[in-house]
């Protein structure tokens, strides 16, 4: 909890120093997400179809946390639009995402490293880019009707507000994340958004 307090303080003062930017996406159709553990990294991928500033768009968000053996934590956060053809689906049964973020100017990522001993330090810079590839198969084991307003705060001055209005079903998922492959996600869902909003402020 002490670590979190320090991170929150860093976020607060950073927000005073730098002008904030806001990106809003409106999800109105298919989407998917996957969470996986790859070695010492926990990764998540979210993709959805909808609108960005009233224009049809496909949105992707990636997050990874890596805890190093010395206790330091590396955090990567990326978001933006990807080409529509990068995300394909066969109804709600199969979905695929295949995109190389190094080739997309509409996608941005940040990487921050936090150390906690002997004292707290943080440094942030441009994040890594590369291929994000995920295949989802709807397994229908768990189904959810979701109406959620959520607010997430990440340790690089990023706040994500989401209004989720969707139906979702559990899925099997496998793929690769910036060069690291995973054979099975720990959690994955295929989704049908009715009226979902994602607002990212940084």
């Amino acid at each position, binding site marked *: *909890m*002490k*670590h*979190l307090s320090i*991170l929150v303080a860093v976020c607060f003062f950073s927000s005073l120093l730098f002008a904030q930017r806001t990106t809003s996406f409106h999800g109105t159709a298919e989407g998917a997400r996957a*969470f996986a*553990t790859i070695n*010492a990294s*926990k990764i*998540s991928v979210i993709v959805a179809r909808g609108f960005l500033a009233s224009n049809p768009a496909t949105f992707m968000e990636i*997050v990874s*946390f890596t*805890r190093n053996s010395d206790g330091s*934590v590396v955090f990567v956060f990326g978001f933006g639009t990807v080409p529509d053809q990068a995300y394909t689906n066969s109804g709600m049964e199969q979905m695929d995402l295949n995109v190389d973020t190094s080739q997309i100017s509409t996608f941005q990522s940040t990487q921050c490293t936090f150390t906690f001993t002997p004292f707290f330090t943080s440094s942030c810079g441009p994040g890594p880019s590369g291929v994000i590839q995920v295949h989802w198969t709807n*397994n*229908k*084991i*768990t*189904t*959810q*009707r*979701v*109406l*959620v*307003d*959520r*607010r*997430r*705060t*990440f340790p690089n001055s990023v706040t994500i507000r989401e209004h989720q209005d969707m139906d979702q079903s559990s899925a099997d998922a496998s793929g690769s994340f910036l060069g690291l492959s995973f054979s*099975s*996600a*720990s*959690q994955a869902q295929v989704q049908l958004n009715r009226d979902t909003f994602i607002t990212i402020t940084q």
Partner: protein
Amino acid sequence: MKSLSLSIMLLLFAPFAVTETISVHGTVAQAEVFVRTVNLIVTSGIDVNGSPATLLTFHTTSFNPDGTLTFVIGSGTIPDDRFTKEGFDKMNLTVDTSQVAGYSNTTCILTPFPNFGFHCNPSQGGPIQVSWHDNGLNSEDQSRNVDTTFGPTTRHEQGYFQFSSADVEGSVVGTPFNLSGSDFDAFMDLAHFAKVSITKN
């Protein structure tokens, strides 16, 4: 004629369709873990009679060579002292569901193909021990209104939830796990103006 047949069928089967709901409300403390082989949520609050109550739902998953899946499922209330909290930094669950009167223990086989379906039978249950420790990696506020259906049960969650990611370790009916450094697989929650219910259909 089709309507008449349907009515007769409903009359025949209605007496056997038993729906059972348990719930807690108010300010609710909750801890959860979602990994590939274990899904568990323990929730403490106030029951419909105004007494403290603790709900526990879980399932473990085994993947069989023939493509079917075996779920060991538990659902019901447990004694309140089985779920302990040290502030909001640590939570601990220790219970043997085979020893809890009225607790529902079930084993289900899921056949995905050609016809998706759960085939369930009562089972024994067993020991569960899980420890959560706040890891400070992720915090999240959610106003939730979510219905989750898994096999024969539907879980309803409603309220204002504050989540903190946690490191977690333990064992659920013989399935061990140990997870640290995760921001999304395990949480400790505090919920206000909440209602959590579990309905067995």
